[in-house]
């Protein structure tokens, strides 16, 4: 068989195995917990209404187990769990009881993507271009200043960065709203767009700043090393213009390893940005995860966990398959 075909098939096989393994880990983690979700629901019902007689309680327990896929032996549950996860059926949410988990996730997903897609890309582009140029001119004063800025924002936990921004721009200088997303549903109108921009600006800037530091630092290191490569020296000896050397020789080659990072981060989008979304009350995946945790909604947690794992796995599969086209030095093997 053709080499490429072999590589693609084996990579896809490994991808499937990885997903099954990751799902099994999720299953183990969720089943390790000492809390029994069904007993919790029954406890909640009994605490709200009055007395339930034993036989109807037993009946309730039975129905709930079936509904949540907790029936049968552990092995049955495991098989059920894998099949249902792959189908995307996580059962109803405990906290918003009859609503299926999948519906809640589908409602939150567009919000998260709308915020995280552009912030991830913008942070990556800014960090890499500025970092790359700062690496080439590392002796210059402005490059050191930029490096100092990146080094002092990179280690700061994201939440603190965001809190300072909120304090400055929403509390002291009240330019931006404190939280919310501006609208209940995503619609394609100018009014919605303006509101969205106004509400998403502050969380967006905080996210861009949060990722900028790392991209800047790593790209600066890479381009510092690329500058010393033989082919750059050769280009200089050829008398090529400075602009061609910087953009076509140094930046372009330094950027290659960063593409993997971008892909993984884009896959990680489905995780949502927990800290951002909770702080800004932005109704995305991170926010519903927070709600799920605070209300012990295990099905919802599971749904989010499975979705985000699948997304990251898919992103790394795609990048593995596409990378040889981007970087001619890599060959399928």
């Amino acid at each position, binding site marked *: 068989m053709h080499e490429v075909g072999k590589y693609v098939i084996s990579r896809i096989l*490994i991808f499937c*195995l*990885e997903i099954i*393994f*990751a799902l099994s*880990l999720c299953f183990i*983690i*969720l089943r*390790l*917990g*000492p*809390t029994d979700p069904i007993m919790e629901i029954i406890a909640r019902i009994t605490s709200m209404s009055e007395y339930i007689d034993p036989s109807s309680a037993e009946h309730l327990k039975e129905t709930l187990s079936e509904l949540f896929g907790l029936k049968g032996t552990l092995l049955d549950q495991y098989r059920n769990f894998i099949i249902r996860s792959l189908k995307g059926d996580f059962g109803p949410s405990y906290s918003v009881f009859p609503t299926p988990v999948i519906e809640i996730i589908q409602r939150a997903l567009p919000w998260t993507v709308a915020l995280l897609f552009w912030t991830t890309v913008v942070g990556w582009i800014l960090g890499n271009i500025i970092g790359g140029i700062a690496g080439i001119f590392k002796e210059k004063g402005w490059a050191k200043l930029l490096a100092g800025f990146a*080094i*002092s924002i*990179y*280690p*700061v*936990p*994201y*939440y*603190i960065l965001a*809190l300072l921004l909120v*304090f400055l721009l929403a*509390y002291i200088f009240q330019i931006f709203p404190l939280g919310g997303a501006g609208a209940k549903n995503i619609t394609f109108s100018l009014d919605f767009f303006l509101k969205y921009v106004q509400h998403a600006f502050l969380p967006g800037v905080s996210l861009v700043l949060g990722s900028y530091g790392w991209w800047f630092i790593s790209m600066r290191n890479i381009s510092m090393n690329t500058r010393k490569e033989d082919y750059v020296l050769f280009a200089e000896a050829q008398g090529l213009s400075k602009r061609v050397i910087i953009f076509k020789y140094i930046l372009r080659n330094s950027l290659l390893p960063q593409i993997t990072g971008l892909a993984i981060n884009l896959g*990680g989008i489905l*995780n949502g940005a*927990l*800290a951002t979304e*909770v702080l800004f009350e932005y109704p995305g995946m991170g926010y519903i*995860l*927070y709600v799920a*945790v*605070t209300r*012990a909604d295990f099905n919802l*947690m599971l749904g*989010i*966990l499975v979705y*985000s*794992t699948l997304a*990251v*796995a898919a992103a*790394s599969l795609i990048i593995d398959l596409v990378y040889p086209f981007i970087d001619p030095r890599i060959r399928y093997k």
Partner: protein
Amino acid sequence: MKTKLLFYANKFKVILRQNLSLTITTMTLVSLFIFAFVVPLFSNYDPRRWGTAPSDLPPSLAHPFGTNSLGQDIFWLLAYALRNSLISSLIASFVGLVIGIVLGVVAGYSGGLIEKIILFFVDTVIMLPSLPIIIIISSMLGTLDMVVLGLIIAFLTWGMPVRNIRSMVLSLREREFTYTALFSGSNFMKILLYEYLPHLVPWIFASFLGRILLAIGMEVTLGIFGLLSMREVTLGTVIYWANRYQAIFRGLWWWIGLPIVFIVILLISLYVFSTEINELMNPRKVQENV
């Protein structure tokens, strides 16, 4: 002659500047560690208990960092918080790194099926969303001990070091000195300890510090959102309570500001320290300097 002098003068300046930031960060880190591990020994009551001090006092001589609305002295509280955060992150960093190094060396040196299996597990662990999983585990266990938190973070983040160590061992394995050592009768352990380890140490050290950064960041995020046990005090939970009582809007800047300042100083000096050390111990640089 003149250019040579200039060259040495410049080099001296560079080293001096390097050492300056190294000295500053080392001093900061040492004093933070003393604050975290020595100061709590001298507190004559449990600063975690509520109502042990008058509430909402700004910093003064009696309470150098002020007090909060829960009636806790922030000076003692922060010492405990810093200690707890450091303990959990040191455990997280150390345990995860040890797992990573062992598996990375095994994968890099053995190759074949064992390497493939190890890499398979590594890829899966890297894929798992660690923050959501920690949140879910901590919400299920209810209370999360600092040591347990450290271990959970370690078991979710050992993947990357395996990959890095493996690729370093792969390249070291092909170097000439490996063959020289093998042909002169050294066994694997000897080569690993005497030949490879010196090459790996700078990376291991920098990565150890980097992982502490990561773990503290996770702990702070969890704590701030009230997803850790509220019985323990950590840098994150101090901020959680400050937010809960609206410290910013009530003008109690010392309650929320001081833990933030501590976190920022701790993390930036850890980071700068690790890059400086890495620079100094880089074998290529050392050769250049010699």
